[in-house]
């Protein structure tokens, strides 16, 4: 290839559609829009709250475990867990010590891994195993055809490479985000976030009795409402904007464990947040 100034291109190229192209060029990026292959279309991704379910101990956790066990007969489950109160604690110590976002994200993975093993222990009679993150993604298709369900650390492996947030220093990609990204990449059927509230409210229902329930809402509407708090990672709104395969997720109250099977059957039993058309 001859350059505008007459020099020869001395780069050794490999023949491909994107050869010599700057991947930063807008037209090049647009040209790469194409339908996406679904790897695991028959699987369901669930995220079990660390603080909302597991940290509450036997009273909240055992009924959820039982509900999940019943679903395993008919559904393939990929279960993410968060770090819960221990992650919050390590954040507060880490912040006090002056550690940056990436380090906080690295530390939080350990709490999620601990919770994955806790849930893995309780689901082991049903053949469900917790799998460490280093091999989880590559071997997931094998695991999910071999076991009725698998558990992973919902926190994505961003660690030191976590994005600096717009406000403050808390890592933006928590276990809700990790579960979403996994479901989107593998083309899972749906994503259900199991929490200890019925879904999304106009305000935190635990602090404000007047809070109103929102059964379904789009990303743009939700942004417009500018709610003080959300029962899921805020970054999920951006992830939904750019989703190709997963166009919605549902928040379901795990303290009403019978709703879990209903959610997996496609029923509307909590709050559905969906991408704008």
């Amino acid at each position, binding site marked *: 290839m001859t350059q505008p100034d007459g020099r020869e291109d001395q780069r050794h190229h490999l023949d491909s559609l994107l050869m010599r192209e700057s991947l930063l060029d807008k037209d090049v990026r647009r040209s790469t829009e194409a339908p996406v292959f679904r790897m695991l279309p028959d699987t369901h991704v669930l995220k079990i709250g660390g603080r909302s379910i597991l940290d509450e101990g036997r009273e909240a956790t055992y009924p959820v475990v039982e509900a999940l066990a019943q679903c395993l007969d008919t559904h393939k489950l990929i279960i993410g867990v968060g770090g819960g109160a221990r992650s919050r604690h390590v954040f507060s110590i880490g*912040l006090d010590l002056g550690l940056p976002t990436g*380090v906080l994200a690295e530390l939080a993975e350990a709490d999620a891994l601990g919770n994955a093993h806790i849930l893995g222990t309780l689901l082991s009679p049903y053949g469900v195993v917790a799998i460490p993150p280093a091999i989880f993604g590559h071997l997931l298709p094998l695991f999910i055809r071999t076991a009725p369900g698998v558990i992973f650390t919902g926190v994505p492996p961003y660690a030191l490479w976590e994005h600096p947030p717009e406000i403050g220093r808390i890592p933006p990609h928590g276990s809700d985000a990790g579960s979403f990204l996994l479901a989107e990449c593998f083309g899972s059927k749906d994503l259900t976030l199991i929490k200890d509230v019925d879904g999304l409210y106009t305000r935190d229902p635990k602090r404000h009795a007047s809070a109103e329930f929102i059964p379904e809402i789009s990303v743009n509407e939700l942004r417009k409402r500018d709610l003080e708090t959300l029962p899921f990672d805020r970054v999920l709104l951006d992830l939904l904007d750019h989703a190709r395969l997963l166009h919605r997720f549902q928040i379901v109250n795990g303290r009403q464990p019978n709703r879990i099977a209903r959610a997996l059957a496609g029923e509307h039993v909590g709050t559905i947040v969906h991408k704008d058309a």
Partner: protein
Amino acid sequence: MQNELLTELGQYLVEGSLTDVNVLRQTGQEPPLPILPNANVLKVGGQSFIDRGRAAVFPLIDEIVENLGRHDMIIGTGGGSRARHAYSVGLDLGLPTGVLSVLGTFVSMQNARMLNYLLAKHGIPFIEPIQFPQLPLYLAERGAVIFFGMPPYTFWHENPGVGRIPPHRTDTGVYLVSEVYGARSMIFIKDEEGLYTADPKKDRNAKFIKEISVAELKAMDLQDVVVEHPVLDMMQNAKNRRSIRVINGLVKGNLTRALEGEDIGTLIYAD
């Protein structure tokens, strides 16, 4: 988990919501500690540099060796031509962004390993993300360390707004290392003098930009920019590394001048 040892903020972090903007704001009041304030992070381009082979790479290796003992260098690698090939095959097959991210990782790993062999006789190690806890030791002992530039997001890579190519590639991964460690500098070693108003390889009217803020750069809305867009967004949110330098590594001496803090190439900074 009541704990009287926790600060007031700590208490709220344990009990409150991490989506509460008022709480998040408080977590940013103190600046983070610079972890490796004397280290310089370098990014060696894939398509722009390593793909040129011996003619480009050997002089750069010599210059890196000359700077050992004078400047600590954390060296990340780009992907380049083979990453583009893998992306185009993957796109044609309909593979999702997360899988393309895995493929890109393998290519930047090959480039890191090649640089590693060229620097092996100087005792410079190549480390994977899982070995980053040893990075401070290697840096103190040998003065440099090599890693692959792709961030380890793999299957968890966010989709881009447009298209299917992973948006957070090697520029972003290397930049984030400079941010998290609070490094002294972030230097992108490419095959152009720096930033231009268009791709100088394709447009002879492209004008060189010596220094520019992220806000100005975004306002120009250029068709093509020398670094990945997310780096610009992240610089605006960054707590430590709020400027980057892009230099032409094909010119002997440029790397040394950049390490010495001289104003060469293009400086892009967040206001």
